[in-house]
Every structure is written in structure tokens, then in C-alpha cells.
């Protein structure tokens, strides 16, 4: 019988030596330094959830990026269970982030490896592990209703409402 050309049924668990640490490197799929400060539970709980999560936070989206576009892009690493668009708490309109939940963690890992740091709507988007969606987390936490980063930013970003909120209020 012929196999599929991939590594056969034998795994890396060979008694004569497993693998090499340089080949185990998977830095794109690792946890970042960020921890959601609003998480309810211990750091330990949070990290445990992050390590088995199938949900990614996606940031630096344009306010105009649609769920359909996100579905198309993130669908390239596997079947998507759910996309939850981030909303301005006041206006209830898209405010530049979302959550993407996969059925399988491996698919989320591939998104971290190959979709993170590439472009959607001409913007470099960033993905990070998320401990899991909970009602309320779809809203921006900035004072004006959007994301915190859009409160204080000084630059002009046409895809994110122009200048930062504090700048706009000057």
C-alpha cells in the first residue's frame, strides 16, 4: 500500500531520539505577553484557557471590514465556527476588531502562523489567542465607545475613524 506522502503512521516518538528544539520552534503559535485585564479568574486559569483555546482576537481591522471578508480570509486555515464583530459600545457599529472561533485548535494555530501579520483590506492585521468569548467582550473598552487604542492615538487613520478621540476633541 502507498501512503499519502506525508510522514507515515510512525510519529516523532521514536525511541532513538525525538526531535530537535530548533525544529520544534513554533513561535507564531505561542501565547503573547498580552493578558486581558478584565479576565475573571486567576492568571493560571487564563493561561490554561489560552493554551487550549480555539478562539482568536483579531485587531487592526478597518471599521469597514465585513464579517464576510473575515470569514473568507480566516477560512483559509480551517472551518470557522463563529465570527463575532467588535462593536462600538455606544454606536453599535464595527470598531476595528473581532473574534474568530474555529472548531479545531489546529486550525486556529495555522491562522496564527499564516494569517497573522498579513493584510486584510490593505491593513496588516494582528491575531492573538483569546480565552473565549463572553457576552460583553464584543464591545470596545475605550471611553468614547470604541477601542482604547483609538482613544489616544495621534495619527490619522482613515479606516479607523480618522484621528484618535482625544485628538478629535481638541
Amino acid at each position, binding site marked *: 500500500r502507498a501512503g499519502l506522502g506525508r510522514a507515515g503512521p510512525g510519529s516523532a516518538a521514536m525511541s*532513538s531520539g525525538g526531535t530537535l528544539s530548533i525544529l520544534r520552534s513554533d513561535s507564531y503559535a505561542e501565547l*503573547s505577553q498580552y493578558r486581558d485585564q478584565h479576565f475573571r479568574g486567576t492568571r493560571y486559569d487564563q493561561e490554561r484557557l489560552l493554551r487550549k483555546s480555539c478562539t482568536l482576537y483579531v485587531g487592526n481591522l478597518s471599521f469597514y471590514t465585513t464579517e464576510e471578508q473575515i470569514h473568507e480570509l480566516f477560512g483559509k486555515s480551517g472551518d470557522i465556527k463563529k465570527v463575532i464583530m467588535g462593536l462600538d459600545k455606544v454606536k453599535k457599529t464595527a470598531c476595528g476588531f473581532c473574534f474568530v472561533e474555529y472548531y479545531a485548535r489546529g486550525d486556529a494555530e495555522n491562522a496564527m502562523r499564516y494569517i497573522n*501579520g498579513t493584510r486584510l483590506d490593505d491593513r496588516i492585521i494582528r491575531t492573538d489567542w483569546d480565552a473565549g468569548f463572553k457576552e460583553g467582550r464584543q464591545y470596545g473598552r475605550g471611553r468614547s465607545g470604541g477601542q482604547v487604542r483609538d482613544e489616544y492615538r495621534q495619527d490619522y487613520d482613515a479606516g479607523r475613524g480618522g484621528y484618535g478621540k482625544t485628538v478629535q476633541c481638541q
Partner: protein
Amino acid sequence: MSRRRHSDDSDAGQPHKRRRTSEPSEIEERLESLICRVGEKSNSSLESNLEGLAGVLEADLPNYKSKILRILCTVARLLPEKLTVYTTLVGLLNARNYNFGGEFVEAMIRQLKECLKVNMYNEAVHLVRFLSDLVNCHVIAAPSMVAMFENFVSVTQEEDVPQVRCDWYMFAFLSSLPWVGKELYEKKDAEMDRLLSQTESYLKRRQKIHVPMLQVWTADKPHPQEEYLDCLWSQIQKLKKDRWQERHILRPYLAFDSVLCEALQHNLPPFTPPPHTEDSVYPMPRVIFRMFDYTDDPEGPVMPGSHSVERFVIEENLHCIIKSHWKERKTCAAQLLRYPGNNKIPLNYHIVEVIFAELFQLPSPPHIEVMYTTLLIELCKLQPGSLPQVLAQATEMLYMRLDTMNTTCVDRFINWFSHHLSNFQFRWSWEDWSDCLTQDLEKPKPKFVREVLEKCMRLSYHQRIIDIVPASFSVLSPANPVCIYKYGDESNRSLPGYTVALCLTIAIKNKASNDEIFSILKDVPNPNQDDDDGEGFTFNPLKIEVFVQTLLHLAAKSFSHSFSALAKFHEVFKTLAESDEGKLHVLRVVYEVWKNHPQMIAVLVDKMIRTQIVDCAAVANWIFSSELAHDFTRFYIWEILHSTIRKMNKHVLKIHKELEETKARLARQHKR
């Protein structure tokens, strides 16, 4: 806290300080690191690094011999792209410590046997190649290597074994010859001639019915898509004609010849290939993908010909680099570009060819498709002045040859190209492809452009696509993905079910319950009235039409809206679609509403399968129905079909696993 995660810094070492205790595990880590990194960027020459490392390892042998043996065996198996670096290292160690050399060879043979036992054939090839290069390093005596190869080739005489078994042993022999052919032929020419003649007769009599299935293009021009053993055989024959002169492989051991030729060699123990068993799974045969030749880069270094052994070695090594670093895209790109021979070979062309070879590999690529897209983007970042041009040239060539390209490969080409463009503002010289406008829209080239534009639209939005193509291409532009609601206009009020649809719309907007929906739908006449079998609820296509049209129209705003609608009215769906005809009709109505938005159809079908509103059989019947015949060659249909089959497979595997686990639990219970 910032969300920045992946840093652009290369591995900067440990972030925290370690105390300088020489714990064994630390030493082992250091040894592994030293060994793995030899040959990487350094201020000193490779030779002096190898010399230095050999000295360090020799000194550590008394205390860490088994660890060093294990590490060296592992790099032999897993870092084939650095084969000659490590064979040289082993050669130097053998010259300093004969016993160690012997133990290493024994350990390698043990590892080889184990690999073959657990079907790790790809890694086993690396081990065989390593052993053969050890002949060049005076670690293994040439005659004993020839004897091993004689045993390999004699596998082709075995009866009642799969051809792929014989293929593997043949491949292991032939693919080692670029490294060691010269030495073996010099020492044992008669035996080698005999082996080569046996090889030739095997290759003549073996079956090659797999070739048409695996070829990316059906045409032989401009480059024949050769069966992998045939191609390798041509390469070896040419190598032999060139008196085994091979000039591409970096051979650090040549610099140490005076030291190495003083070393005592070891004989390989007689190696009997393990017999074929029920559980043996050999690698699949392949077809060699070629898209470039020396005419494609007239200004640069000459690309080695398709039957040159250099081509084989370069391709093998580049594939190995991708295999080693596929999870780390920046490292992978850097390592590919660091492949030695940059000035003598058109490296960018080799890299692009090898990447497309994997992307288009049939039946499946070795890695997930999106990896290749991102890897090519990383390569473009590292070589912005040269790689994008090669990629554009490759795209042009692939476009020119669409007529004979395997449809699955065309699909992958479409997915790659559209995703790639979306990272570069969709900039492309579409006018260069105006030739496709004069063709029948169903021909490969215009079809390809249509599908690309459709996929580009999915990653952006309709108006963007209109803006990026010349006006002449509007005939190929995708439809505006809007919902078609048949009861929308007052002018449709004569349609049966129109008033119920209006009623339903109001009810749903007022958050009606499922029961209220049912009672509204009761008023819908059944066009199949005469088929009523008296059981109360029969298949009523009009009811399905009114309900599904109305609901999907109300929920048209986004995927989430539609999914919520499916969830909220799940009970209604289940009831209406209880029969097979019901399921089929639901799918038909979904199509009618969303035929301008294939992506929406795909996600709705997916959701309906997962929530068991329709089943896989219904989807298959719908796809192969005569109503959908006009869309049969559109890729979204196959996207849906493949996705459906995948879900089915996953489901079967899952419940099979649950069944096995339950059986095992039951068995354990009985034992108590």
C-alpha cells in the same frame, strides 16, 4: 498592554539569565545547539567551525557520548539539507576516535531499521544518504556500501510485494548517487554497473499508470512532467556519462582530506531490508513538477537542466528546508534564500518552482495551502528587488498554460493568486490578459480570470473589483452579491404565497414564535395537493419557498444575521425539510435567493448541515441536479461539495473513535 506579539528579532538567546551550573540537561541543550547551528552565519569559515566543534565534541565524549550519538543521529535524520556538514563532522570525529565512529555507524543502522519498521520512509532516505556520504568522509568502506545497495536493489526481485516498496529501495539507492556515485564507481565499477543495469530493467518493467493522475499539466510542452524515478534515472545516467563529476554539492570534507584519509574505515554490517508486512505503508509515487528552464532567466546564472543531477540536489534540499521550517515562515524564507550556490544558480527561480511544486502537488500539498501564500509574501519582503518579478513571471506562465492544467491545480492557483493580490492592493497588469476576453467565457483562461475576480471580491468588496480591472473586463467581473427576494416588489403580488410572505415578514419583525410561524404558514396552499398521503404534513414546496425566501431576505444583512435566523427558526426548518424532497427544496430556494453570492450559499449550506436541517445526501443531490447544471463548472460548487465531504469524513472519524473508546471502556469494565 500591547498586543504586539511576533518580534522581528532573530532568536536573541535566553531572555532570563541562567546560573552557570553545568547541569547535564543544560550541557545537552548546549551540545544540541552547537551541533544544530554549525554552518549557520558565522564570522569564521565553515571549516574552522567544524574543526572547533569536532574538538569540543571529542572532549565531551567521555561524559556525553550517548547524548552526542543521539543528537548526531537526529540531525542526520531531520536536517538533510545540511547533510555534508554533518558527515564531515562525523568524519573528523571518526578520525580522532575510531570507536566512536563505529558506534555512530551502528546507531545509524539501528535508527534506519526502526524508521523502516514504523513507515518513516522519507526520513529513512535521509539516513541512507547520510551513510553513503560517510563513504566520502572515510568513515564507511565503499565496498560495504555497495553491498547494502545490492541488497536494496534485490528488493526489486521480490514477488507479491507492492510496487511502491521496490520503488522506495530503488529511490534510496539512486538518490544517494549524486553524493557518492563517484567514489563507489571508482572502487567497485563492475558491481555498480550491474546495479545500474538491474535498475534499468526494473524501471522498464514497472507500471506507471499513476502518472496521468499526478501530472499538473497534461501537455508535454514546454516541460514534460516526468515520473519521479524516470527523471532521477535520467539524471543518474547523465551523471555517469559525465564520469560522476558533480559540482553543486558543498563538500566540506574535501578541505579535510589529509586528515580524513588517515582515518580507519568501518564496514557496514550486512543489511537485510525488513520484509513487507500488512502494516507497511510506503511513500506514494510522484511526478516531478517543472515550470522553468534556463531560457526563463536569460540575464542570470544558468538554471541546471531538468536531467542534471544538480537540479535534483537543489530541489531535494529546498524541499527539505520547507519541511524543516514550515511552522516558522520568516525562518523558512531566510533559510531558503540562504541556500548556497546563490551566484551560480538562479535561486529565486528554484525557490518559486519548488514552492509551486508543493502547492500543486496531487492529491494534496504537503502543507496547508495558505502557508505557501504567506511564505511567498515573506520571500518578497526579503528580496523585494527580484522575487516579485520572478513570481509575476511564474503567474504569467501558469496563466498561459491553463488549458492543460489539472482542474484541482487551477483551483489552487486561483486561491493563491487572489489571496496574494489582496496583500498587494490587487495590483496586476490585467490588460496583459485581454486575450481571454475574445474567448468563450467557459474556456479556461476567461474562467480563471472570472474565478480570480470572484475570490478577490470575497476578500474585499464588489466596487473594489470594478475599480481594479479595466472596463473591458467587466464581462468577467463577479455579480454584485445581493439577495434576490421574489416577493419583494409590489409587482410580484400575483405570485402564489405573496400575501403569506408579507404576513410572515411582519410576524418575524415582531419576534413571532415558531408556533405563530407555523400557523401563518398553514394558509399556504400545497401545489402537490393531490399527492397528500393523509399523514397531515407532506412536502409542500410553496411553504418552504415562502418561509425560506422571507427569512433569508430579512436576515440578509450579514452571515451572523442569517445564522441567527437559522438557529431561531430551527424547528420550522426541521419540520418543513423533514423529507428528502423538503431538504432538496430548501437548498433550491437558498440558491434562488443567493445565487449572486456564492460565498453566502456555501456558509448557509455548511450551517444547515451542521444543524441537521439538510444532510450531506441532499447537498449532493442538489449539486448534481439538472437545475444546477449551468453552474457545474463554477468553483464554488466544488468548494461546497468538498466541504460537505470533509464534514462527513470528520464526522465518521469522530463517531468511529467514540465507538472504539466505548468498546475499550466496556472491555475494561468486563475485566473487573
